[in-house]
C-alpha cells in the first residue's frame, strides 16, 4: 500500500511539472501581449518596447519560466503584470465565489443523479425507468449557456425568485443573499452535470445487480431490488467516487462559461479577462492552481478507492 501511495505521489508531481510547462508554453504562442494592450491604439512602437522592458517581457522565455517555477516552489505565484497585486490574493478573493459555486453544483448533480440513476436501473424496461433515461440523455446534451438563460427567464425575470445576475458587493457578509445569487448558476451546472452522472450511476447499478454477492442475496429470498439496495450499493458508491474527479473537471469548465452568463466575479470570469488582457503571469498561476486542484482530487480519489475496496487492498 505504501509503495502504491508513493508511486501515485510521484505521478502527481510529474503531472504538475508537465502541466506547468504546457501552460507556460501554450500561453507564449498566443499573439499579442500586455504591452501592446497597455499602449493601446495611440501607442508608438517605442512606447510598447519601453513597457515590455519594464515588465521583464523582453527576457528569454526559459529565464521567465524558471523564475516563475522558482517562485511557485517558494509558494509565491507572482504578481499581476497589469495591477501589481499578488496572484494568490486575487485567486483567494475570487475563490469565494467559484468554490461554493462548484460545491453547490456538485451537490445538486449528486442529488439528481444518485436516486434517479438507481431508480432508472431498478425500473429498467418499464415506462418510468425509460423516461428518466431519455430525459437524462436530452439534458446532458443541452448547452450550459442555454440552460442558464432559460432558468433566468423563468425564475429570475418572470417569477423574481432569484437575482438574474451578479453577486452581493459584501460577498458572504450576508450568506442568504450570496446563496441566492449562486442558486441559478449552481442549478444550471448541476442539472447538466447531473444528467451526465445519472447515466453513469445507472450503468454502475446495472453492473452491480449482476455481481455474485448481490445474486447470492437474491437467491436467499430477497427481491432483486432489496438485494441491490443492501448489498449492491457500496460498489456503486465506489464507482461514483471514481468519476468524481472527471465531474470536478467538468464543473470547473462549466464555471468559466456560467460566470460570464451570470456576471459572477469568480475565477472563471477572471481567467477569461486575464487571457484577453494577456496578463500571462496571472493566467499561469490560475491555470496551474486549477490543474493542480483537479490532479490532487484524482490522487485522493485513487487512494480512497484503494483503501475501501477490499479486492484492491488484497492485491497489494
Amino acid at each position, binding site marked *: 500500500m505504501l509503495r502504491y501511495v508513493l508511486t501515485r505521489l510521484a505521478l502527481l508531481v510529474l503531472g504538475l511539472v508537465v502541466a506547468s510547462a504546457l501552460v507556460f508554453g501554450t500561453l507564449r504562442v*498566443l*499573439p*499579442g*501581449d500586455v504591452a*501592446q*494592450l*497597455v*499602449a*493601446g*491604439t*495611440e*501607442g*508608438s*512602437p*517605442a*512606447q*510598447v518596447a*519601453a*513597457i515590455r522592458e*519594464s515588465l521583464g517581457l523582453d527576457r528569454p522565455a526559459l529565464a521567465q519560466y524558471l523564475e516563475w517555477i522558482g517562485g511557485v516552489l517558494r509558494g509565491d505565484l507572482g504578481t499581476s503584470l*497589469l*495591477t*501589481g*497585486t499578488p496572484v494568490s490574493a*486575487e485567486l483567494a478573493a*475570487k475563490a469565494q465565489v467559484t468554490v461554493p459555486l462548484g460545491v453547490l453544483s456538485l451537490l445538486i448533480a449528486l442529488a439528481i443523479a444518485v436516486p434517479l440513476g438507481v431508480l432508472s436501473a431498478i425500473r429498467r424496461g418499464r415506462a418510468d425507468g425509460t423516461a428518466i433515461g431519455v430525459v437524462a440523455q436530452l439534458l446532458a446534451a443541452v*448547452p450550459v*449557456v*442555454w440552460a442558464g*438563460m*432559460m432558468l*433566468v*427567464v423563468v425564475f*429570475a*425575470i*418572470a417569477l*423574481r425568485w432569484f*437575482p*438574474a*445576475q*451578479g*453577486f452581493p*458587493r459584501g460577498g458572504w457578509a450576508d450568506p442568504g443573499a450570496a446563496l441566492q445569487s449562486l442558486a441559478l448558476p449552481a442549478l444550471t451546472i448541476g442539472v447538466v452535470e447531473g444528467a451526465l452522472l445519472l447515466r453513469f450511476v445507472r450503468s454502475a447499478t446495472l453492473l452491480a445487480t449482476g455481481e455474485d454477492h448481490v445474486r447470492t442475496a437474491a437467491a436467499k429470498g430477497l427481491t432483486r431490488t432489496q438485494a441491490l439496495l443492501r448489498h449492491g450499493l457500496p460498489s456503486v458508491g465506489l464507482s461514483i467516487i471514481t468519476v468524481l474527479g472527471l465531474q470536478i473537471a467538468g464543473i470547473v469548465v462549466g464555471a468559466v462559461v456560467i460566470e*460570464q*452568463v*451570470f*456576471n459572477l*466575479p469568480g475565477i472563471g*470570469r*477572471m481567467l*477569461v*479577462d486575464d487571457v*484577453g*488582457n*494577456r*496578463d500571462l503571469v496571472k493566467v499561469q498561476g490560475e491555470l496551474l492552481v486549477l490543474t493542480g486542484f483537479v490532479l490532487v482530487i484524482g490522487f485522493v480519489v485513487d487512494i480512497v478507492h484503494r483503501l475501501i475496496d477490499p479486492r484492491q487492498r488484497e492485491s497489494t
Partner: protein
Amino acid sequence: MNRLPLRVTAVSALAIPTLVLAGCGGQGGDGAPAGEPNPDASLRVGLVLEPTNLDIRHTSGAALEQILVDNVYEGLVTRTAENEIVPALATEWEVSDDGLTYTFTLADGVTFHSGAELTAQDAVASLEEVVSDESVVGHDDLAGVASVSAPDDTTVVVELSEPNQNLLFTLTGPAGLILDEGDETDLQSAANGTGPFTLEEWNQGESIVLARNDDYWGEAAGVAEVVASYIPDFTAGVNAALDGSLDVLTAVDPQLAPQLDGANGFSLTKGKTTDKYVLAFNNAEAPFDDPRVREALRRAIDHEALVEAVGAGTLQYGPIPELDPGYEDLSDVAPYDPDRARELLAEAGQEDLQLELTIPSFYGTTIPTFLVSAFNDIGVELTVDPVEFSTWLQDVYTNGDYQLSVVNHVEPRDFGSWADPDYYFHYDSAEVQDLYAQAVSTVDPEESAELLAQAARLVSEDDAADWLYTAETMVAVGPGVSGFPVDSINSRLDLASVTLAG
C-alpha cells in the same frame, strides 16, 4: 465578451411577453422622477468595458478615462459632452497672439484627496513628467512643449516651440491631469486626485466604487456614492437592470434595447459619440493600391441599411465625426451604387476578388455578416477572421498584416492617423499631411477647422477607407435618476451632476 449565439437571442425574444406581464404587476413606474434628490443616495451604474488597471498615467484606453477623468482626477481644462473646452483646475487661461505661450490661472483652495494642497508646482511637475517620460500616455502629443513653469503660486505657463491647435484638447485628456508632486500612491490600484469623488474601492472583474469628496473645491457631487459595475455580457447587463440591481445601464445593445424601454420605469436616451467604426483598407498592398477597387468596395455598402441592422448609429462618410472640428457632410463622395461598383471592378480587372476581413470578435456578427453579403453582391468573396483584441493589436495595428479590418476608433480629434503613413491604414498622401500640419500650427481655430475639413475631404475622395457609421450610445435611465449625461459618455462620464431621488 462575446455576443451570445443566435439561439440565445431567441430566448430573449421569449422573455418579452413575460416582461410585459411583470410590468403589469405594479412594478413599473412611468419614468417620471419621484421625490426630491437624496444627497445620501448610492447610484448604481452598469458599464461594459473595465479598465485593466487604474494607472491612467501609463495605461491608455477609453475605459480608464471614462471613469477617472473629471470624477477622480482633474486637469487644468476639461471638455463638455459636445467636446468644447472649458475650465477645470484653471479658472481662466490666455493664449499669446503668436500661439506659443499659454498662461493658466489656478483655482483657489484646491486639495488632493490625501489632504495636500494643490500648488502651481504640482501642475508643472505633472506636465513635465509627460513631456520627459516617453512611457507616459500622451507623451507624443506634448512633444512641442518647450517649457512649463510657475512664475507664482497660482500661475502656470506652458511655452511651445511652435503653435499647436491641439494643445488645449490634449490637456483635457490623461496627459493634462494634475497629480500631487512626490505622492507615493500606487497608481495601479489606488488614486489620489482633486476630483469630486474619491476612489473608494476597486473589485477587479466586478466594480469600482467612488465616494463623494466632501472637501471638493467646486460644487459637491449629487450622490454620496457611485457603484460602477462592469458587466461585459450585454444580456447579463439587461438582466441586471431588469432584476433591480442597477439605476442606470450604459452602452445598451440596441438589439436588446426594446426589452428595457418602459420596463421597471426605465427610459432610453440616445447620445452622440466620436466612436468611428472604420473599415480599413491596407492601402499599401494590392489590390488596395488601386483606387478603383477601394471605391468599388465603398459603393457596395448601403450605409443606411447597415445602421438599421446594427440598430443605432449616425452616417459618416469621412474621417471626421460630427462632434469634432472640421466635420462636413461627405455623403456625396461615394454613395451606394452596386452597379458602378461592379463596373469599377471590371475596369480594374478584379472580377474574382477574394478578400479577408480581420475583426475583433467582441463586435459581434452583425457588421461582418452585412459586409459579406454586400461584397458578395458585387462579386467579391469575403471571408471573416474574428480575433481577440490582443491578436488584432499584434497582427493588424502593430504589424500591418491584414487586408480589411473593422475596429471602433473611439478617440475624438484623431484625424492625425490619416497624416501618418506608418499608421496601420498605410495611407500616404503628401497633400493631406501638409494640410494637417497647417491645421495644427494655425493659431485661429476656425481656420484650422477649415483646413481639417479640406484634408478630410481629400481622404474620403481617395477612398482611403470606408467609414461604416459613427455609433450612437444608448443609456437606460431608471426612475428617480436625473442629470445623467447623454453624449460622449464612452470617453467622459460626468457623474458629479447626477442625482437620485428617494
